[in-house]
């Protein structure tokens, strides 16, 4: 019996060690990702002229590696996606958590979950087949493959993220807040917009930030429907013209470049930019939700 005891503890010691190492693995992976992006991407700064990288032309075959048009492409589809996604996402969350009866939520929530599970290549496919021709005819454009079509798809893709986090935020607003407002004679509508939504403000901002992260990082759907033209805008109608995002550029060109060439390195450099952007977005998002929490705790105590 005693001997067995000892072997159990030795076995457990090993298990505990394995678990601890696994626990720390995420730190290792983020570090590895950063290191390998740097290793492959930083040489771009030496091998491609800086004036080219920060120039306005992306034409790799002739050595023009200007990332501004790509950054612009990413920003414009993301902004478009937010313009559509925020009202729909927040509106849906408010409806789910404040108005809809439970039986209706049992339909809405699984549908949103299905949306979250739809592969982006499927949405991209339908973008090509259905959305782009439809929008071209509707808006009378030369091509339906435009930033706007990308923004519509991105809004769909970002919606589940926005909805789930906004809904969580609304649900954590204490019921007593709502009861207090209703007791003062406010209608339900006034309570929602005057009390509940403002109280969930920081959570909603977090949701929007994560929606931004999701949109900037989305690749396939955007690549398939935005027309892949790396150009800087000339007017306000840029939203309805073809653009090309950073993610789409990497995805469509990496397969054709020689390993270690300047073009290859610049694509990795764009990867670094995306990595840093996603890091920033997530840190801002999580610090916002933390700040919101401490604030509401202070209010309650």
């Amino acid at each position, binding site marked *: 019996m005693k001997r067995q005891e000892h072997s159990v*503890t030795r076995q*457990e010691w090993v*298990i*505990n060690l394995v*678990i*601890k190492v*696994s*626990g*720390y693995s*995420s*730190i290792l992976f*983020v570090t590895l*990702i950063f290191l*390998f*992006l740097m*290793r*492959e991407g930083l040489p771009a700064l030496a091998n491609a002229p800086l004036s080219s990288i920060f120039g306005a032309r992306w034409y790799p075959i002739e050595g023009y590696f200007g990332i501004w048009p790509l950054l612009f492409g990413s920003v414009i589809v993301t902004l478009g996606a937010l313009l559509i996604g925020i009202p*729909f996402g927040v*509106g*849906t969350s408010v409806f789910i958590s404040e*108005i809809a009866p439970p039986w209706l939520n049992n*339909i*809405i929530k*699984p549908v*949103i979950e*299905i949306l979250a*599970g*739809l*592969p982006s*290549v*499927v949405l*991209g*496919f*339908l973008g*090509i*087949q*259905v959305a782009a021709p439809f929008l071209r005819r509707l808006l009378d454009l030369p091509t339906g493959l435009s930033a706007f079509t990308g923004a519509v798809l991105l809004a*769909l893709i970002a919606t589940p993220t926005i*909805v789930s986090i906004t809904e969580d935020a609304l649900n954590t607003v204490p019921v007593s807040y709502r009861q207090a407002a209703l007791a003062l004679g406010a*209608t339900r*509508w*006034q309570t929602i917009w005057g009390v509940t939504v403002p109280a969930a403000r920081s959570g909603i901002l977090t949701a929007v930030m994560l929606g931004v*992260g999701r949109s*900037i*990082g*989305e*690749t*396939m759907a955007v690549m398939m429907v935005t027309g892949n033209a790396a150009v800087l805008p000339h007017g306000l109608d840029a939203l309805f013209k073809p653009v090309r995002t950073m*993610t789409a550029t990497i*995805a469509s060109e*990496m397969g054709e470049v020689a390993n270690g060439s300047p073009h290859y390195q610049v694509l990795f450099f764009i*990867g670094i930019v*995306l*990595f840093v952007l*996603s*890091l920033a*977005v*997530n*840190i801002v998002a*999580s610090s916002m939700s933390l700040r919101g929490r401490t604030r509401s705790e202070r209010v309650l105590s």
Partner: protein
Amino acid sequence: MNRSFTRARLQEMLGNNLLRLITFLTVLPVVAIIVYIVIKGAPAITWEFLTQMPRSGMREGGVWPAIVGTFYLTLGTAVFSVPLGVAAAIYIAEYAPDNAWTRLIRITIINLAGIPSVVYGLFGLGLFVLFLNFGTSILAASMTLSIMTLPVIISTAEEAMRSVPQSFRTVSISLGATRWQTIWRIVLPQALPGILTGVILGLERAAGETAPILFTGVTFFLPRLPASLLDSTMALPYHIFVISTSVPGMPVKIQYGTVLVLLVFVLGMNLIATFIRQRARARRMW
């Protein structure tokens, strides 16, 4: 008084209907997408379509190698990410002290979840394909997908373990169980449905991803099934991308059929996850 009251009532009525409309417009496209794909894709689904190699530059034949490839990639992802993810979740939920390191772990998990999928592809290319010399292979692609899937598995598994009442742990320890015995015999069995749900949802995402496998393991066309872990493979999502963008004269029916196959694969997993969750809720012993 009376007039402002009526105005408030009117505002409430209009507002509620506006929100109802917005929600409807969010839900409608999803339902429409599913229905549309099923209608347009179903005629393409035949036994031959599911079990044969593509022919004539994808324009005829079936999608068998892509189905097999997606299955292998999903399985490979599960092999790497499930043990690692669950172990990491155990550490965070059951072992980790409340200190700066644990906070760092949490931040890195959040960041892993936020890294764009195409950046995972770059990373997989740099580390697995080139540095570790796996080549573009099922191995490299599965490992890339695994790291991308980790945060989903870790956070859902952690949540599932945290929902197991603390009193069970206290009782178990008081009866002379070690920490690991308590986890193995009490916490994990109780958290299992939640963990499984998270695992399936994570794998569902991995199965539908294209960008991470673009440069790490997937190939346009393979006249045979992959023979080893170091072979490259076809996969449904990439196949859809290719036939919808770079094969001129591609029959639309086959395109929708392929999309439908991927959709069934992915939503089938979603359905299984939902089923497990509901059954567990009904059977819960506390």
